[in-house]
């Protein structure tokens, strides 16, 4: 069971979080201009990296914030986190 460092709450048990899968899948700005294949690529295709993998998690039972986490999909070692929308953790938080 992972011990995840929420950027806002610090180390918490995995059970407080939900994993949202691969990060950085940006929604196309003009979907109607995409081909069916391009749309399918956005909706369904995934990189599913074996190795260091940037994914997004939400601290469902804690602060409720989404953040990104780089995690190795074989060793499960994880570290670097990132925030969305520029909501920076406070120094005293």
């Amino acid at each position, binding site marked *: 069971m992972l011990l995840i460092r929420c950027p806002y709450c610090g180390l918490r048990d995995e059970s407080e979080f939900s994993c949202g899968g691969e990060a950085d899948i940006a929604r196309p700005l003009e979907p109607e201009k995409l081909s069916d294949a391009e749309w399918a690529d956005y909706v369904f295709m995934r990189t599913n990296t074996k190795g260091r993998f940037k994914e997004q998690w939400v601290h469902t039972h804690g602060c409720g*914030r989404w953040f990104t986490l780089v995690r190795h999909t074989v060793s499960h070692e994880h570290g670097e986190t990132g925030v969305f929308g520029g909501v920076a953790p406070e120094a005293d938080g």
Partner: protein
Amino acid sequence: MSGPQFRLSAGGRIDRAAALGFSFNGESFTGYAGDTLASALLAYGAFPLARSFKYHRPRGIYAAGAEEPNALVQLESGARSQPNLRATQIELYSGLNASSVNAWPSVDFDLMRVNDWLSPLFPSGFYYKTFMGAGIGTGRWWKLFEPFIRRAAGFGRAPAGPDPDRYERMNAHCDVLVVGGGPAGLSAALAAANRGSRVILADEQAEPGGDLLAGDRGIDGAPAMDWTATAMETLGAAPDVTVLTRTTVAGLYDDNFATALESVGERFGPDAPAHLPRLRLWRIRARQIVLATGAHERPYAFANNDTPGVMLGNAVRHYAGRYAVVPGRQVLLGTNNDSAYRTALLLAQAGIAVTLADARESPPAALAEAVRSAGIVLETGCAITAVAGDRRIRGAKIAPVRADGEIAGSPRPVDADLVGVSGGWNPALHLASHRGARPVWNEAPACFVPDDLSALGVRVAGAVTGAGALAECLEQGYAAGRDAARAAGRTKRIRKPVLKTDDGAAGAPIRPLWAVAGRRPGDRRGKAFVDLQNDVTAKDVALAARENYRSVEHLKRYTTLGMGTDQGKTANVTGLALMGMETGRSPDAVGTTTFRPPYTPIPFGALAGRDRGALFDPVRETPMFDWHAANGAVFEDVGQWKRPYAYRRAGESLEQAIDREVSAVRNAVGIMDASTLGKIDLKGPDVVTLLNRVYTNDWETLKVGRARYGLMCHEDGMIFDDGVTARLADDHYVMTTTTGNAATVLNWLELWLQTEWPDLRVFATSVTEAWATATVAGPEARKLVSDLDGDIDWSDEAFPHMAIRNGAILGAPARIFRVSFSGEASYEINVPAHYGLALWQALIGGGATPYGTEAMHVLRAEKGFIIVGQETDGTVTPQDVGMGWAVSKRKDFIGKRSYSRPDTARPDRKHLVGLLPLDSGTVLPEGGQIVNDPSQEPPVTMLGHVTSSYRSPSLNGGFALALLKNGRNRTGDTVHVLKLDEGADAARVVDPVFYDRDGGRLRG
């Protein structure tokens, strides 16, 4: 039994003042406090107490701990019965009652022993090679034989009734978790504790000490157990040290999460105090871990090495030293390393005749001198080749052996009634393996040791590293404890203790020895077992090699080596080494198996903890729950909620109740508890933009005080929720969701708001539970609500359909949605949740009939309103259910692009339609498959299915909603709905709105 004749007259860590009576296989025995079941039984001799898995050969106690392969027993009977416990790990208590497993009619005479005599027919994997049913019909032979095989397999039996015991879970946190309370573990715990660390020390025994419990070791010129006692005092006085005895660390997981099982009430047996849990599962989050898990002695194999009375050499030492039991008068010890010498000396001190056969030509001179001067017969360059006897040892043979284990001279008989075999040590690297350690073959001690895990915060110390000397174990323990404390940020400087041990002069290396004879085909000297529990012999390993099942996993799976309840603790390495010999490889080239948690088995109940019975899963109750329960509600589970399905009155069937409730809403007024519907407060200037993106329809025109229905889809275009959203103020909306999706929808909004559209200024807050909701519906609804004192103008003009009003009702703040899911005039009255019950009672007092979810389903189906999850299943678009009107063409929204994909744009997809059975007395089966031709043989062409079907008191007959291929273009057609068994019901395809098509009733 003739009394505990094998109990030594003095010594041991048993309490001779506390005699404990117990029974085994119906006979009475007496042991002492401090005994295990195994030690207490051994005091009566090394008799058979089990039968082996496959051949049903008699088996006795083989080891002294978790590695025991043979002595599995059924403890107690009835609901508290427990199968497959190792006698070596059961603490004796007064009145204990145990019996043998896997033996019929008795352990002394077992009919299945016939398997042993027929064993030439049953080599490893024999079952893959027969029962194929060639020529006799598909698998018929196997069908015939499988039940026999099943009955023959398995050990103990499941208990007879539900478990009456309690189990606890406990979360704990520490700087340093030390696993194992032997010298290395104690040393590590002291080093960490003295630096101010929060320490948890877990040891599986009733008292720490590990190998020192044998009582024959010394530290600083005193018995080593004195040092242990002092260490325990120090640890006990430290503020943040938790010592968990009788606690087995079962598994290590990512980020140094550990599970451990503590025996709490279990050791008292069935008479344990009722408030105590039987077991406690610890969930430990450790910053650093020190594994001082020791090592298991391994045997070497020889003919009939499973005869009761053959034991691990070090087990003989522990029974003698710790429990004062030596179940024999003439002991033959076979060894290939130094450790058996301590056993020999301890036995000789107790006056036992000992022959020590050391496979090495030249044992260390000091050891040889010591044993000889103690009167022990030392035979060098010899190994045990066979024992004689069946149910007990009637002698043994020894002979010189070659490097590959083959006998190099003629075997000589040795008088013996107890045989101890010491083939070297296998470090207990199970836990390190859970954490990813790769076992590395270490030539000098001829064993696998774990590789370095310190980068993960896991350190090893003591015998688990292959260390043999006590001084080395203490030293490694200290270093690991110190380093772990430092890594956890406890940097206090402490002087290192200096301890003098009784290790003596340096020893000689091991001479690896795996199996003496017994490997070659045609060797008739008797079975040489590698895995005692699963009856895997050296020959079986050779057969696997011959048939090319050569990888370690194939070996295990083909022969079942190491697949038993002991996970092969005494067997695996020997099996690997033998496979290596067969195939010309070193043991590590054969491969190593990955050890799987748990280290020792864990009862399911301990894993379930408190998640049982009434506490299995949270029950969510609405504010009106008590009223429902007291007034005949039949509840249905909707997620964790309990919702009234219908309210049954005395003498009423469920169907009659539902009919009555439907009629009440159609003809008078009903109320439903709708508190479970999700409610999300949305605030901010950009709410309307958000709504436009997550709902399929347009939201710009919604005015303050008005509400609108919306559909939510995923990017694949499929419906996943629906609900009404109302505008309370310019920048303030409230969204409702289905009961089941309340949390899902809020998470969905947050996902998009946070990750994709952080520029949108919207705050979303769940207010589901802040409000209690009573839906008042029916032609008399307005009259009923108008009678409630308050400040709301209920007239249709002031408060039309799809409007929302805030005000006060009977002194409580209220928020009312005039929306209708029933087709009648309908008010969803929300009051702060604590007032919900009182509001409900007031409405009942005003003459409303309570109705449940099933009546609600009927009412809405008559109106053709969908229920997400019933009319939809994740494959249904808004257009499919006839709600193309709610899909905006002007704007983009989540899922929109998917509608132009070829399959999604097909005009002949499955559409929501109404079905009217041609026979109005028929209620079509929900889930019924729709066909054109009811006479077609399977596989039939299925065109869709009935999604909802009810009897309608208003329509006075059956009606249904269905998803039907090309359905909107088939209005008026007759289709057929297959019955479960035979035949079909004919039905006409109609518009899905059955009731009040123009909506006059719901507008007032």
